[in-house]
């Protein structure tokens, strides 16, 4: 499966994370940095499964939160880019041994 900037992505398997009251806390182990996602960010995070593309995630977001498809796609792509640049997401199919910690 090839990975484009649009995905699909998977969660970095080395992360610690927990959804607490609709918000998600993510710990990046190498830097010991904590990231927090709001409710819509948490919704996307939950649905990042290594299979769905950005467009598919955006469609789910638009349905769940009643936002326009254009807004949903822009927000989804921005979040995915941010998470990938922080190594919280990695290309789908990456073996855990290859995943940067």
């Amino acid at each position: 499966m090839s990975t484009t900037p649009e995905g699909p992505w998977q969660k970095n398997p080395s992360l610690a994370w927990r959804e607490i009251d609709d918000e998600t806390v993510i710990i990046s182990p190498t830097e010991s940095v904590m990231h927090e996602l709001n409710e819509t960010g948490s919704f996307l995070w939950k649905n990042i499964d290594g299979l769905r593309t950005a467009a598919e995630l955006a469609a789910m977001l638009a349905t769940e939160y009643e936002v326009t498809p254009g807004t949903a796609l822009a927000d989804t792509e921005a979040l995915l880019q941010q998470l990938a640049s922080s190594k919280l997401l990695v290309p789908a199919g990456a073996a855990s041994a290859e995943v940067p910690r």
Partner: protein
Amino acid sequence: MDRLIARTVRKHRPLSVHFDLTYRCNERCVHCYLDHENHGELTTGECLAVLEEIAKAGTLFLTFSGGEIFLRPDLFDILAAARRLHFDVSLKTNALLVTRERAARLRELGVRRVQISVYSEEPTVHDAITKVKGSLERTLAAIPLLLEQGLQVKLACPLMKENLMAYRGVMALAENLGVPYVLDLTITPMMDGSDGPLAHRVSTAELLPVLQDPVLHGCHPQPVSQAAGTDETQSPSFSSAVTSGIDGSAYDDLPCSAGHNSCYISPYGDVFPCVQLPQAAGNLRRERFADIWYHAPQLEQLRAVRESQLPVCSRCEIRAYCERCPGLAWMEGGDLLGAYERACQLAEQKAKLAGFVNPISAMHAEQGPSVSEATLIRESGSFLPRLN
């Protein structure tokens, strides 16, 4: 982090859990507060069920400790389950059983931090405390194995009569290794309340050279936070015996995190607010974690406590220099809300070093000289009333 703490405290989410997997140990530290016999530890399956429950309840920070955790043959099964459930995992160990292969396995299973007890850089001092000849050498040999794997290592050095002046050596050791450390002044009674370990606790007068050491706090102790925290930097730090791994500045008027967003689970499934407050709120063999956490009267009572409403301590002029622990207040003074001798004495010493003239705690001010004399009798080890 403050926002997360404030949010979890407000909603009573168990963000941080300290889970002792066993009380069995391969050392016999003179100051230890545990009964090392196995009275029926949770099975592997029961441990995994506990992890499922606390993950569902919102726990992120999970510390496995003991006893010595590597004595559990299923340790890696438990760690693998913790990884699958996405916990942020820390370990506390004496590291005697750490090998290169085990260190690599810890890394594979996503363990982030390992805290190791080191009592001195001198084998004779360290080994005399652990009662295991060669233990310091084996512990120190494990540290590079863990560091090679990219794990964060922290040294913990409880200070007692046997090693009071060893802290400088431990600090130098940590510096050479490039790891943080924590010096711990807390020696507690046994969990069953017996006071054997207190024979190893140094008096506050004996602590003066340490408190005055310019390397620690720059000679001028600063007012402490109202809640326990932990310092992950390499700067000198003291700590209570139990830390949640989270910053304490968001606790506001609460004594500490215990029962608010953290708790302790014993190897037998008992749920306590904290290892230093061994009042079981329930048992996970009989009840679900969420039922205990949200409905146990002991936890509800603890959550109602506010620092500003403590009957004696809220009036204390040197409260800012005090590290009062509710658990120790209960174990040593018999009152969760009360003051206790050790905390008052330490606060007075710290306030004096900070420039206060004849600082006196609220408890001592209320007791007056005759009661202080009685206190001295308690400190000397006798709890019997004087008959003459």
